[in-house]
């Protein structure tokens, strides 16, 4: 029997959060963590979490699984269960709405801050803005982010300053637009990042790289932004 322990908190009825234990029979199958949650919800419908696509595309079921952030839908039990225990908590550092559901407002506010859309002040061409295959390749490893927040909510700098440090997810997207040959707002974008918090609260401990379910590398993108700031200033 798999020992499952789930963080429970309903602000309407609970004084404080608690861990609830369940026994779970996998019947020898290597299920995904989300499958376990689904079956527990069938048993107790009050168990609350977010999910949508169930295949690692939508980014809505980011949770903390045995101490490591990840997507419940693409984390097989075999990859995380040790000593027969599965502990599921909400993503750290964000306010809990209920059980495993966190309030992502602060995370989205940082994303909004980096203006995640193409800006180009030259006249629009008749059909589309072209880009060479080489320039397009520069966006690989950046555009794939699904905004699951696994990275930012595993970053200590983001825990302490979620209102001032953009965080790994936001910075990866900031670089995605800085690196885009069709974007002409590079200088303004850099100016908005050149304070002691937005970029420079990153101390390079790479928790973000360690957890990203899409295998992306925010630390490297942050390094590129720093280099761009440095080149611009010197």
């Amino acid at each position, binding site marked *: 029997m798999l020992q499952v322990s789930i963080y429970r908190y309903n602000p309407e009825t609970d004084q404080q959060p608690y861990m609830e234990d369940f026994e779970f029979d996998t019947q020898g199958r290597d299920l995904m963590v989300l499958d376990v949650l689904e079956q527990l919800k069938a048993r107790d419908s009050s168990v609350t979490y977010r999910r949508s696509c169930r295949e690692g595309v939508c980014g809505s079921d980011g949770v903390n699984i045995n101490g490591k952030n990840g997507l419940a839908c693409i984390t097989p039990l075999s990859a995380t269960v040790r000593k027969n225990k599965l502990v599921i908590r909400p993503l750290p550092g964000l306010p809990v709405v209920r059980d495993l559901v966190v309030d992502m407002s602060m995370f989205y506010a940082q994303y*909004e*801050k980096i203006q995640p859309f193409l800006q180009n002040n030259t006249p629009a061409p008749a059909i589309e803005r072209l880009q060479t295959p080489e320039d397009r390749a520069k966006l690989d490893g950046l555009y794939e982010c699904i905004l699951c927040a696994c990275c930012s909510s595993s970053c200590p*700098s983001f825990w*302490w*300053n979620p*209102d*001032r440090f953009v965080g790994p997810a936001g910075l990866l997207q900031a670089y995605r637009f800085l690196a885009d040959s069709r974007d002409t707002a590079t200088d303004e974008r850099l*100016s*908005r*990042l*050149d*304070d*002691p*918090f*937005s*970029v*420079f*609260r990153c101390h390079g401990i790479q928790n973000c790289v360690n957890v990203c379910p899409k295998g992306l590398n925010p630390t490297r993108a942050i390094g590129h932004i*720093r280099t761009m*700031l*440095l080149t611009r*200033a010197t």
Partner: protein
Amino acid sequence: MDMVTAVTSLGRNGLADWLIQRVTGVILLAYFLFIAWAIAGGVDYPSWKALFEQTWVKVFSLMALLSLAAHAWIGLWAVLTDYLTERLMGSTGNFLRITSQLVIALGIFIYVVLGVQILWGY
């Protein structure tokens, strides 16, 4: 959205602080290696005194002294603005942070003044 401002940060912008932190780090490393090398060669009072009577050693020491001051301010400033904040503790956070900054600034000031006096005063 506005840029995050920080009047108490040393360089007033992130890049300057970051660069100062790196450069002072290198100077400090070089200085401590130099001191370690001097000590490893064996020291007694006359040789130590002779070492510090050379102008370049004084200048190097002064550089290390100022580097340490800047390095410490930037590092501690980052720690204080992580843990002693209004977000975490309300106005207590602001009070504790500003008080700590004053104490640290005073400490660093005394340290620099004493250091300069020791280096150039005798």
